[in-house]
């Protein structure tokens, strides 16, 4: 569906268009909220709040920049949430069944569970990173944003994002290995 037409309809108050927009971006918004706050229930509430913010500011966005804008609003709302909570994300476990609900391309349930285990482990390891490194992993490696966009969003130089990116991945890999307790590497 054409993004510009969808936006125009949303601005005119078309509920169907707004529902389509929510369905289109709920995965990303919920993912960002979940990886920032670390808790499924909080992430659900936060994702709702993010969509309310998006709805209030629909007139300020162009169709071409819709996705970066969604990511920006989601990130800012997550940071606000964390500030309100005044604590780091706890990095709690979530049950494997819940993780199996994730949008996965695994062809069968066995692979789905393996994939879910890995994701659960990554999510727990994310909770052990520093704030900046966690943000860089979420935005760059998970959300696939460009280095320039991340630098603009976080207000830091591009060079810092580049150098931090490798360090963050190393830190995450070490955290995964520490959590898994497997010195020989991540077991597939």
């Amino acid at each position, binding site marked *: 569906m054409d993004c510009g037409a969808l936006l125009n309809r*949303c601005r005119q108050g078309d509920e169907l268009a707004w529902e389509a927009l929510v369905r289109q971006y709920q995965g990303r918004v919920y*993912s960002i909220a979940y990886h920032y706050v670390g808790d499924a229930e909080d992430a659900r509430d936060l994702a709702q709040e993010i969509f309310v913010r998006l709805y209030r500011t*629909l007139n300020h966005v162009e169709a071409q920049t819709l996705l970066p804008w969604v990511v920006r609003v989601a990130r800012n709302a997550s940071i606000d949430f964390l500030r309100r909570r005044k604590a780091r994300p706890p990095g709690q476990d979530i049950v494997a069944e819940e993780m199996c*609900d994730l949008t996965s*391309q695994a062809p069968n349930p066995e692979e789905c569970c393996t994939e879910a285990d890995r994701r659960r482990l*990554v999510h727990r390891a994310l909770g052990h990173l520093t704030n900046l490194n966690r943000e860089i992993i979420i935005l760059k490696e*998970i959300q696939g944003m460009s280095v320039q966009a991340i630098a603009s969003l976080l207000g830091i130089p591009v060079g810092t994002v580049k150098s931090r*990116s490798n360090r963050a991945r190393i830190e995450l890999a070490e955290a995964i290995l520490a959590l898994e307790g497997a010195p020989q590497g991540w077991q597939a």
Partner: protein
Amino acid sequence: MNCSACERRLEQYQAGTLAEADRLETDRHLRKCAACRALLEALEAGQHQVIPFDLSEAVLSRTTGSACTRCRSLLGDFVDGFLDGIESELVLSHVGSCVSCNSLFRTMSQMAEVLPGMRELTPDSSFVADVLRSTRALRPAGPRLPRILDFFRGLAQRPRFSWEAAYLATLLVFGLFGTPFSPAHDASSRLLASLQNREGLVAQADSSIERWQQEAQTLVSASGRARQTISRMLTRSAEAADQMVGEGQELVRQSEDFLKSAGKTVQERIAAVYQQAKGAKALPKR
């Protein structure tokens, strides 16, 4: 062949890759030289020796230190396939021999597959309905100025707007000026006082202007006097210059007269000498 030449060839000799002539020459030297023979035997024994597992680590610890830090700085690019040529080979070699870097490499490789898959997470099925319920009462906020204009336009288009505006204006005027408790009930007296105060200010301004005018006149007269003085000085200097020019001209005239009289005297003297000479020439010969 000397010993150093033999030592350079020993490796190839051992591998059997020497040319025939060189091999024969090396053979001859080895038969004669006990030291080179002993070296060859040591090399052959070393081929079957098991290398200590921590030899390279021990060497690194005594020279450059561990290469893990350098490897980790390149590991991200290596996993992404951005390293090329020798750097890639070096990292691969280190990862093949270092257990901890190998673990990191394997974990990061799998992270590169898993992390993009976490881009979207699907919340429960009632999530969309909850969002729609939250936003039902809202309207997307537009730019602020048009919204304000729209509000006032709608207000003005109400049927009894003029009556309501007149009523509100009357209330406002009465509230401001009409009662003893109104904030502006003594506005007229305050206005008068401020006007009087303003007259005093005007008088002060007038006197200041007069004073400035007098000072300006003083300045003008002083400048006139200065101009006269300057013109007098100019006149005097012109007169002095004229006088000097006249004296110069007089001197020139005197010198011309002197030159004329001197010229005349010289001519007369020449004529006299000429006449004398002529008279002497006219005397009869004896």
